[in-house]
């Protein structure tokens, strides 16, 4: 069964902390994505990567960075967490068609 695994289901972090959200896929997909889901705002693209060490900004990259050192792993980094980054974070991968496989999500609360 193909999978996208997000390392944490729930996280609570303090304002100003550096936060790492990890995502691993086992499907050898080239493309990986980070979205956040907020009530009334849907799914918004933060960053994506279409190859190792490649990254592109999505619609809301401010306050975030990413790292893709290996094909299977895509990390989202909150450089200095703020309360407005409290959200559900969703990682997805695809092989280049439009069939995303999503992880189960990480519910991040910044206090």
């Amino acid at each position: 069964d193909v999978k996208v695994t997000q390392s944490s289901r729930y996280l609570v972090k303090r304002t100003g902390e550096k936060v790492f959200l990890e995502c691993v896929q086992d499907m050898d997909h080239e493309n990986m994505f980070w979205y956040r889901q907020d009530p009334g705002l849907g799914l918004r693209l933060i960053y994506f990567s279409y190859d190792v060490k490649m990254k592109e900004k999505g619609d809301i990259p401010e306050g975030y960075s990413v790292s893709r050192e290996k094909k299977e792993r895509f990390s989202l980094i909150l450089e200095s967490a703020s309360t407005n980054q409290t959200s559900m974070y969703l990682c997805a991968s695809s092989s280049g068609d439009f069939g995303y496989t999503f992880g189960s999500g990480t519910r991040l609360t910044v206090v």
Partner: protein
Amino acid sequence: DQQVKQNSPSLSVQEGRISILNCDYTNSMFDYFLWYKKYPAEGPTFLISISSIKDKNEDGRFTVFLNKSAKHLSLHIVPSQPGDSAVYFCAAPRLGGSQGNLIFGKGTKLSVKP
């Protein structure tokens, strides 16, 4: 302008009846659309898609209709079941961007009551 709009945040339907979820888009160059379903505390899962060369695609209880002239698509669920209660997202591939980059609507929360 590239937007996918779901103007109804929620929909409540009785079990056994039809659920109709609507989606509008702003750019006539969109040529492929997808619907995803999301349960709480889970990631979205792919449900059904449609290419712009078709006006209908059916998969079991789920049918998507595309009206290109109106820039509108709809997802029909017949008959609706309580297990269909979820948030449904409409999506389209971003134009001019890297392959596989989807734009999502804001979602419609469907509640199917027994």
